């Protein structure tokens, strides 16, 4: 594991190395190095299983984080590869030619975040949201409560409490 990490740091500019537990390491690589790194890991290091790929919206930094989770079944090790891309229409390279099921993850990320994956099969077809015509709902500028109230006929009389203030009033009414 240590030798593998040394090779990755030397060859692919990996940074922010974070060992979560035995055999599970997360690190960040720059965007142009992602595809060569994944190719290398699959071909030469035995990471032949893509567990998942997912995205996180860091709206404060104006970027998306994409995480690839790879697994080596022989040595029972997991690698989490993080990369950051711009939020405004910047796409990511597709890895559907390495793993066919990556196309489904990419299709979901295209629908939920609007991240483009050029060349990925059926990436523009609706996945969960049929006929969606708003901005992608997992982007953090999308106000899901407002959308729901405008669209889905909320039943009047619903009372909601912020848990912190509600418990404070209940436990310390005199403060």
């Amino acid at each position, binding site marked *: 594991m240590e030798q593998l990490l040394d090779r990755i740091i030397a060859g692919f500019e990996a940074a922010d190395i974070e060992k979560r537990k035995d055999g599970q390491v997360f690190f960040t690589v720059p965007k142009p190095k992602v595809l060569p790194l994944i190719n290398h890991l699959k071909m030469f290091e035995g990471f032949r299983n893509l567990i998942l790929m997912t995205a996180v919206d860091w709206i404060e930094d104006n970027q998306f984080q994409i995480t690839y989770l790879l697994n080596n079944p022989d040595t029972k090790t997991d690698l989490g590869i993080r990369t950051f891309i711009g939020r405004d229409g910047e796409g990511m390279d597709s890895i559907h030619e390495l793993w066919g099921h990556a196309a489904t993850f990419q299709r979901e990320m295209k629908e939920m975040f609007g991240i483009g994956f050029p060349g990925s099969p059926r990436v523009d077809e609706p996945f969960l*949201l*049929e*006929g969606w015509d708003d901005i992608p709902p997992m982007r953090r500028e999308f106000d899901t409560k407002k959308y*729901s*109230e405008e*669209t*889905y*006929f909320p*039943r009047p009389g619903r009372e909601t409490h912020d848990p912190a203030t509600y418990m404070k009033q209940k436990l310390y009414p005199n403060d």
Partner: protein
Amino acid sequence: MPEDNVKYPAEDQSLSPVNRKRVVIGPEGEDILVDPLRDYYCTARPEPELPRQGIIEKFMNWARAESLWVLGFGTGCGSIEIPPLLSPRYDAYRFGVAMRPTPRQSSVIIISGYLSVKTLKRVIRSYEQMQNPKFVIALGSCTINGGMYWDSYNTINRLDHYIPVDVYIAGCMPRPEAILAGFNKLKQRIKEGRGEGANDYIKNLDWYKANQKKIIKDWNMPDYNW
């Protein structure tokens, strides 16, 4: 059919040849327009089926109430509460409740939990294909006011804006005992002659369709699925 008898209009080249709209030359030399995707479209409006009078209606309501055939359709987490209902411990069969595999054979549809827009489209198709009289049981708080998904971008809040509901069973999730109580309530309602949801749906069809079309943006089915 021989290939030289067929002319394809230019606009639907994306469909496979068997599904394309086309003009076929008939045996007399006349042109016949064939549109396979519209073969089973029926655009007729449904008519309400008014209840009969007096003792006949009472007898039929008794018969309907004692034999409820439930469509095996699960939408949310509540569908996991249905299989124990049929197990020996709760044994819904003794109340005359049986599960059926298709909408055409069933008289009750259980909406078991949260309903996403994509599923609502399938629910409408299934509900409209069921034979009269038909009843709806809404399970869980998600169908009442949205439940814990009340501010979600993709789940509906109030089921009764889209299909008429006979019985609500509150809870998150209701236990099988609560569902049995709901079935008994539904039987009582039917015996009192109040199980007229299907006719209400048809009388207020425009309102229901407006609500449904407001959230189903890619409406690609007939207005009423016969």
